[in-house]
C-alpha cells in the first residue's frame, strides 16, 4: 500500500449510526472478482436520493467521512474499504468502528480515526456550518484539525498500524520475514490437518 502521512480536504458528515458494511456496499456488488471500480456502488441504496449528503455539490471531492457510532459493523467484506477509497475517501472519523472493518481499513491504508462522541458531533457541526472548510488528519502527529476554527483533537492508533501507514508496509512481506518462527511453531503443532480426510474427488475417506 501507499504510505499515508497527512490527509487534507473537505469532510462530509454522514450523521447516521450503525452504518453496516451492507449499507456501504450492497452484496450485489460482491460478485465481482476485481479489486477496483467499487466506488460506484458506495452507499448505492442511498445515492438515488438527491438529498443524500454525498449528492450535495458543496461536499464534492471530500476526502474525509465523518460518521456516527459503530461504523462498518456487520459483514467482513473488504469491498466496503475498497468502495470508500475508490470513491475518494482517505480517512473515516467516527465514535466507534466494526472490528473487521477497522482491520480491513488498516491493510489498505484507509485511516481510521476514533474520536469521542461529542468531538465527532462538534466536527459534524463545523463541517455542516461551512462545508468547504479544510479538515486535516495527521497520522504522524495523530491529530485531527480544523485550522480555521482552531479546533484540534488527538487520536490514537496502535503503534504498528501507525508505522505501517507511515511506511506503506505490506503485512504479508513483513510476516514472511518471520518464516523461521512460523516453521518452528508448526513443528510442535498438534492441530489436525486435512491430510487423508478427503479423497481426490473431495469425498470423505
Amino acid at each position, binding site marked *: 500500500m501507499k504510505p499515508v502521512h497527512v490527509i487534507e480536504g473537505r469532510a462530509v458528515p454522514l450523521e*447516521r449510526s*450503525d452504518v453496516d458494511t451492507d449499507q456501504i456496499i450492497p452484496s450485489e456488488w460482491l460478485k465481482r472478482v476485481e479489486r477496483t471500480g467499487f466506488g460506484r456502488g458506495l452507499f448505492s441504496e442511498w445515492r438515488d436520493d438527491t438529498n443524500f449528503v454525498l449528492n450535495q455539490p458543496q461536499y464534492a471531492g471530500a476526502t474525509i467521512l465523518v460518521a456516527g457510532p459503530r461504523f462498518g459493523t*456487520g459483514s467482513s467484506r473488504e469491498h466496503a474499504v475498497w468502495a470508500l477509497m475508490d470513491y475518494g475517501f482517505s480517512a473515516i472519523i467516527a465514535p466507534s468502528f466494526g472490528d473487521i472493518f477497522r482491520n480491513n481499513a488498516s491493510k489498505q491504508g484507509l485511516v481510521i480515526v476514533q474520536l469521542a462522541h461529542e468531538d465527532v458531533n462538534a466536527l459534524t457541526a463545523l463541517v455542516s456550518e461551512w462545508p468547504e472548510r479544510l479538515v486535516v488528519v495527521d497520522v504522524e502527529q495523530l491529530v485531527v484539525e480544523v485550522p480555521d476554527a482552531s479546533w484540534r483533537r488527538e487520536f490514537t492508533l496502535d503503534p504498528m498500524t501507525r508505522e505501517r501507514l507511515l511506511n506503506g508496509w505490506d503485512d504479508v512481506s513483513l510476516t514472511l520475514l518471520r518464516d523461521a518462527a512460523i516453521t518452528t511453531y508448526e513443528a510442535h503443532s498438534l492441530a489436525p490437518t486435512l491430510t487423508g480426510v478427503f479423497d481426490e474427488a473431495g469425498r470423505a475417506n
Partner: protein
Amino acid sequence: MSPTLYEKLWDAHVIEGEAGQSPLLYIDLHLVHEVTSPQAFDGLRLGGRRVRRPDRTLATADHNVPTDPLSVPVTDPISKRQLEALEENCAEFGITLFPRGHENQGIVHVIGPELGVTQPGMTIVCGDSHTSTHGAFGSLAFGIGTSEVEHVLATQTLPQQKAKTMAVTVTGQLAPGVTAKDVALSIMKRLGTGGGLGYVLEYRGEVISALSMEGRMTVCNMSIEAGARAGLIAVDETTIDYLRGRPGVPEGEAFDDAVGRWRTFVSDADATFDAEVVIDGSAIVPFLTWGTNPGQVVALDGVVPSPDEALDDDQREAMTRALTYMDLTPGTKLRDVPVDVVFIGSCTNSRIEDLRVAAEVARDGHVAPSVRALVVPGSHRVKSQAEAEGLDQIFVAAGFEWREPGCSMCLGMNPDTLRPGQRCASTSNRNFEGRQGRGGRTHLVSPAVAAATALKGSFATPEEVRA
C-alpha cells in the same frame, strides 16, 4: 493466574514477535468461499507466492450458488465467473474444494462442523464474519477481510492484538417453545450492536450447557452482530458426542488422545473476565427484530416500539429511520403484522435440528396463500439427512419450497431475493436495510416462529397455529 478459554486458545497459537512486531496468531484451519477470495488469490499470483498450507485450507461455494435444482445452470454471468474463479484458484493452488452439487458442499459454517474438521482448541478463520459459529466447539474462530485471507493463504498466520474477554452467562432454564435463536436474540437485545466491540464473548451457564451443538452454533453465530471478535463455548460431553465418528475426527486411541486435549479447552473455574453479563434464561421468550439492526429486538407478544423510548439522540434517529424503512407504526402488535416471504435457512439456522423443529410445525397445516416460504438446508449432508427423515415431504405437502443448499436469501447474492417492499420472517442473522434484496424488510426469527408465521401469514408462535 487462571486463564479463560480465550487466553488458553491465544497462548496455544501465539507466535510472539520481537520489539515492534505484532504477535502472530497461527491459523489451524482456513475456510474459503467464492466471494472474498478471488482478489486474495490474485494477490498471491502478483507476489509470486504459494499457499503455505493447502492441507489447512478448505473451500466451498455457498454465497452466490442458486438454490434451484442442480440441473438449472448458473445464469448470472458475474456469479458464474466468480464460481469458476474459485474452481480455477483451488486447482492452481492445490486446495480441496466442494463446488456446487458436490456431496460435501454447503454453507461454509455448516460443513466445517458436520465434516468434523472444526474441532476444539483450533484457530479457524474465513473471509466471512459468521465464522464465529465455530466457536461453539471451543475453538477461536473469527471472520477476516480479503487482505487477511491473502495473508493467511501466504503465511498461515495473522497479526493480531489480544481481545478483552466477556462472560455472557445465561442462567436457569428455557421455557417450553423457547429456542437457541431466542437466546441469541435476547443477547442481542441486551448487548446491542456495539456491546461486544473489542471483546471475545464466552457463553456459559445452565441454558448454554443444555443446548445441543446446533443450538450453540446458532448462539455463537450471532456474536458478530454484537460487534464481538468471536464467541466461545467450553468443550463438554455434548461437544465430544457431536464430533465422534465424523469424517475429520480420528478414531480409536487417536480419538481418546484428541478428547483428552479437547477437554482442556474450558475456562478455569476461577478465571476472571474483563466483563460479565448475566441473562435470566427463564425470562427469555420468543423474540424477533422489528428494525434494521439486529439489536432492535422485541418480544413476539409485544408491540412495535416508539422512538420516545430511545435512550439518546443516535438511538432515536436510528429508530425513526428504521420505522420508516420497515413501514411500521409504533404500538402495532407484532402478531398482527403480515409477511410476504418466510425464509428458513442460513448459517444461523439451517441445520438438521432447525429443519426438524420447522417441519414439526409445518406438519399441522399449510402455508398461507399470500406467503412464499422457502426452506434451504445448510448443506447437501443436511439435505440428505432431512430427506431420509421425510422432512422434505412434510414441507412440500405444507406448501414450502424445498431447495438446494446455499446461503440463499440471507444476503441477496443469488437469485433468492426479496422484492422492494416485501416483508420477510427470516431465520438468518441480519436485518440490515436491503440485506435480502433492495427495499426488502427483514425480521429475524427462530425456525419455529418462521414456520408458524408461514402458516398464519403474520407473526406467530407454533401454539397459535397448532390444530
